């Protein structure tokens, strides 16, 4: 697999903070590449430098083996975190406006069906719901049939159903062979969509790899979750291994059979027991000692 974009020793300072601190990575042709991290980790700064929107202080970004040339803007599609559109235009007119900026691209009808916008083409773009609006912004990013697509936190602020619908669209786009670079702070989103991820914090990359590989590399255990009341009989014996999380008690264990046997031997009811695998959220907590969603 060839690299479509290479980032080498990227550095970006703001007056009070070093937003990106000497990071290097590459994105392969045709993959979905995730950039994760909490707000302020440096994801958006990095991605905007990769998009050619913002200059780097140091370091280089190469697109298809060369510094970004004048063709770059014609060949990539970008969905920013927040974008306003021109007022008083319908969805169709907005798409037509952006389509005219590019020498080649997708027909509007194909774009509408790809982004599930066919029913809203003649609606004023300001009157769209949050999910419809994000789909329009996605359609604008796809209007030139790009080889590389940047999605910067595309589902932030969407309700769960709209988020799942959006993921489905991204899967369809991946199936067309497009390379997708996705920033997000939803671990679930990265886990479901991304082939490889980097996790950023304070301008550094703190982990890099396939989501499943990263998880199995860091965790060989699982989490047992019990209501606090149910755990009371075993509190004295097993209290040191347990962590209180809200109304629940969580026990992290590499040997589920032994832990369950111990709980039973102390007379704990397992009626409300839940066992979950470790998540990327846990990984972030493990790596930084902090919650991801701040």
């Amino acid at each position, binding site marked *: 697999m060839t690299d479509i974009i290479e980032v080498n020793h990227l550095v970006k300072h703001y007056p009070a903070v070093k937003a990106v601190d000497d990071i290097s990575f590459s994105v392969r042709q045709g993959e979905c590449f995730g950039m994760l991290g909490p707000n302020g980790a440096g994801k958006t700064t990095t991605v905007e430098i990769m998009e050619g*929107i913002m200059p780097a202080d140091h370091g280089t970004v190469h697109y298809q083996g060369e510094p970004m040339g004048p063709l770059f803007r014609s060949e990539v599609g970008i969905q920013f975190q927040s974008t*306003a*559109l*021109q007022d008083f235009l319908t969805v169709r007119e907005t798409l037509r*406006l952006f389509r005219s*900026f590019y020498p080649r691209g997708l027909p509007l009808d194909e774009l509408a069906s790809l982004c599930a916008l066919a029913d809203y083409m003649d609606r004023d773009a300001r009157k769209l719901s949050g999910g419809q609006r994000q789909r329009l912004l996605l359609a604008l990013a796809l209007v030139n049939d790009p080889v590389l697509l940047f999605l910067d936190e595309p589902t932030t602020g969407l309700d769960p159903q709209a988020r799942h619908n959006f993921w489905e669209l991204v899967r369809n786009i991946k199936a067309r062979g497009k390379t997708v670079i996705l920033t997000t702070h939803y671990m679930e989103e990265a886990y479901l969509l991304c082939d490889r991820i980097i996790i950023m914090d304070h301008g550094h990359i703190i982990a890099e790899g396939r989501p499943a590989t990263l998880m199995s590399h860091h965790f060989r255990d699982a989490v047992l979750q019990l209501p606090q009341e149910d755990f009371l009989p075993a509190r004295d014996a097993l209290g040191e291994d347990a962590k209180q999380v809200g109304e629940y008690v969580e026990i992290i264990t590499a040997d589920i059979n032994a832990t369950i046997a111990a709980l039973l031997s102390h007379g704990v009811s397992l009626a409300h027991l839940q066992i979950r695998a470790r998540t990327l959220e846990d990984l972030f907590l493990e790596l930084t000692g902090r919650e991801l969603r701040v």
Partner: protein
Amino acid sequence: MIRRFLAVLRARNLEFLRDRSALGWNIALPVFIVLGMWLLFSGGEKPLFKVAVFSAGVPLASLHDDFLETRFIQFYSVPDIQPTMRKVEHDQVDMLLDLHDPNHPRYWVNESSPKGYILQKILVGEKDAHYSRESVSGRAIRYVDWLVPGILGMNMMFSCLFGVGYVIVRYRKNGFLKRLNATPLKAFEFIAAQVTSRLMLILVITIAVYIGTDLLVGFYMSGSYLALLLVAILGATSMISLGLLIAARVSSEEFAGGLLNLFSWPMMFLSGVWFSLEGTPAWLQHAAEFLPLTQMLVGARAVMLDGAGVLQILPNLLALTGMTVLFLAVGAFGFKWKND
């Protein structure tokens, strides 16, 4: 390139035409003002009189003329008689006195001017009959004839500055410019489309208001419509360019509003929209010449009131073109797509 320019132009025009409240406001405001001013000025009279005095360089204080002591009259020296006579015709100066020959003092007033008439009564009451009365030639111009180009120009100025300035700042603040910058669209194409869109809309609205006001109020137009259109196009382009320059880097609507007011209010008072700068200090009159609205109004009034052709207003047209080039060059050089 042309395709991208036309697409932005079309989108911007649609945005403006569908924003009915803004469109209605742009048409209604100047009509209301012209009607209001016409009602005001056809009924009453102003308390202050302006009298120009030609004394061949002798200071007014050393003339020892009792009339020059009259209260509520502003006397000021002029170097020539002929240009001032023209201003008397245009009702910008209420009376012209020629005192260079003490044995043969003369005066001119506008026959249709109430202030000229009153001044004449004061003067004749003050003086013996050795003042000989002369008549100004040409058609007497009412204040409203002089005011109409000012009102049309002022409305154009506000529409140019705020229409373009606010729109660009809003686009930048909400991220639309940043999104456009991520496409192959170039700054020049975007700016050219904004200027053209605003120019087209302003010309259509101004022509509509011109016709409407002429039907309702009726005003004097002695020159060529082509010359007037040329002044309007160059004037509007220069003021749109000024709006773009002001908005080239600003991301805050409040700050942009302040800056736009900083430029528009001096123009409203110093460019001769409401009253002539006649009799004000020379440095102020010179400073006003650097304002695009001044150049446009001088040109428009020369065409409308004096029947001037393109050649006579060439200096104004060149000044407007020069300002446009300067504003656009600095504005495009400093143009920022992104919000800070």
